[in-house]
């Protein structure tokens, strides 16, 4: 690696100085790095401002409160309310977390604590590969396999006494908040598992062995040593999963049913912020329709930004307390 470096061998101090002065390389590379970095920064800021600017045009038509809290979205009569989409994003993301977190924690514990390495590594690797599958493939698979498979289940619940609760009431058309939640759960299990696993793996060996030496069972060791130690990292994984679920577009578009409505039942079709942008932007030709969709994009940006910042703050606090795991 270092063989091809011709060492500088100054005969005297002046030779060294002359070499320094004549070298164009330093300012050249320095300025190239600076200009590229600054232009990346400038492009990012410019795009943020430009997008915000385009969405602000909507305010000539709809006030900010009417937009954020409006429950009607009817582009044909130029009524733009964002609440159905905000609701859809929140409901599907929470459903996804509710389903994915226990699975991911169980899988992480299994791979880290219970199985021998020979079995655990290929298992963990396979779960992580799931994260690489493109979302359009998940969406397509969701329409063809998941939605038809979920429907009888949803019908059974809606027909049972549970169906009296608005949350589980019929009718059951197929595409639904639940289907979107399940697809999102499948998509975020790998990332939550992988971050939680790293956090658990960072538990000091001495503490673990200490607990075992005191006669704790495996589960007691996990509960009193591993989980408290990995808490911050696990939380980070959950938030990372949440932030992916909030922003997921294409997969949700395929299975949520694309109805701009607010419905208490998780078996009803709905719409989410990212999926409505993808679904309607190409055909947005009503007055202010594109601006309203860009406005939804700004809302989505702020939502995911808030989640990320909140996560950083909370994880920072965990880390300060526990000196815990490596957290991104």
């Amino acid at each position, binding site marked *: 690696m270092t063989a091809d470096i011709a060492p500088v061998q100054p005969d005297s101090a002046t030779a060294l100085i002359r070499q320094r002065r004549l070298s164009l390389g330093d300012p050249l*590379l320095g300025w190239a790095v600076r200009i590229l970095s600054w232009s990346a920064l400038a492009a990012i800021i410019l795009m943020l401002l430009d997008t915000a600017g385009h969405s602000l045009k909507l305010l000539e038509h709809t006030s900010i409160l009417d937009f954020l809290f409006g429950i009607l979205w009817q582009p044909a009569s130029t009524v733009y309310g964002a609440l159905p989409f905000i609701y859809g994003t929140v409901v599907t993301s929470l459903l996804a977390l509710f389903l994915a977190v226990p699975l991911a924690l169980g899988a992480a514990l299994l791979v880290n604590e219970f199985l021998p390495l020979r079995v655990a590594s290929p298992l963990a690797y396979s*779960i992580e590969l799931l994260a690489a599958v*493109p*979302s*359009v*493939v998940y969406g397509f698979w969701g329409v063809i396999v998941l939605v038809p498979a979920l429907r009888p289940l949803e019908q059974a619940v809606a027909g049972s006494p549970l169906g009296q609760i608005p949350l589980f009431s019929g009718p059951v058309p197929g595409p639904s908040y639940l289907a979107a939640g399940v697809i999102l759960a499948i998509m975020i299990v790998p990332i939550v598992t992988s971050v939680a696993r790293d956090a658990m793996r960072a538990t000091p060996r001495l503490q673990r062995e200490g607990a075992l030496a005191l006669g704790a069972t495996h589960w007691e060791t996990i509960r009193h040593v591993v989980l408290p130690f990995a808490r911050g990292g696990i939380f980070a994984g959950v938030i990372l999963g949440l932030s992916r679920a909030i922003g997921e577009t294409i997969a949700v578009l395929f299975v949520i049913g694309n109805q701009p409505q607010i419905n208490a039942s998780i078996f009803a079709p709905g719409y989410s912020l990212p999926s409505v942008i993808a679904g309607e932007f190409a055909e947005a030709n009503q007055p202010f329709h594109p601006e309203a969709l*860009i406005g939804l994009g700004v809302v989505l940006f702020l939502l995911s930004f808030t989640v990320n910042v909140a996560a950083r703050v909370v994880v920072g606090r965990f880390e300060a307390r526990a000196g815990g795991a490596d957290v991104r």
Partner: protein
Amino acid sequence: MAPMFAEHSLHSISRSRRSRNRLVYLLCLVAGAIALLPLVLILFYLLVEGLKAWSPAFLVSPPGGITSKSGGAMNAILGTLEMTGLGLAIATPMGLAVALYVAEYREGRLAVIVRTAVDLVAGIPSIVIGLFVYSLVVITMGHFSGFAGAVALSLIMLPIIARTSEEMFKIVPRRLREGTMALAMPRWRAIVAVYIPTVAAGIVTGIVLAVSRAVGETAPLLFTSLGSNFVVTDLNQPMSALPLYMFQNALNIGFPAARERAWAAALTLVAIVLIFNVLGRWLAGRTQLKVR
């Protein structure tokens, strides 16, 4: 890895504690199995349905209409190659520059701002990246284009490349740094001739992972490159890409031919993405980078 149930042989552990331990193990087994189930199912459907529809001709035939039986994905494959290529040509030097600026030059507050901005982009949903590029490039140029799509993909790749390269520059061994100083090497020489070759594997890892991410992205292309039913090589024109092609066919699953093309595209896409991903992970394992 701790030994499994070594404590079971000890008589001092009560029955209830033992059975609780067993119960948790079983629950974890069930959770792991359920977590793995979608992978098995998706791969199964991809192979069964995809192989039925896939043929080498699919890769090199121009597309037909939605209902036509024939038609391949040549337009999409060319588009993916061109846009990912151009995106990479933008994102690689920028990502490297950002990494050097943040890890080597460290010019005070400005470096922190640059890093924060690039981190911010990593957290932005990809559909919003599409909107950004629509606002800045598509509206400015007045039309959809492969170029706009490439810019969108470069924004997806930039944070990945910048982040992995930065991590790598940070772990350049101290003795190498001291060596360059002892030789009175100018900074650019140290960077170009010592640091970059030392961390090259890590930089390549970042690039490979960034490609594996960008190749599969649909959302940022929807209203930047838009898609096209013609074999286009001009980056100034609207352009298709494999995920876009699959998306547009998958929306028409009422037509059996479109459904078949969607499966064939899915198989091709997943194969490409997984090859890059596995390669990236393998490289990362050799350089002790963390993949996420």
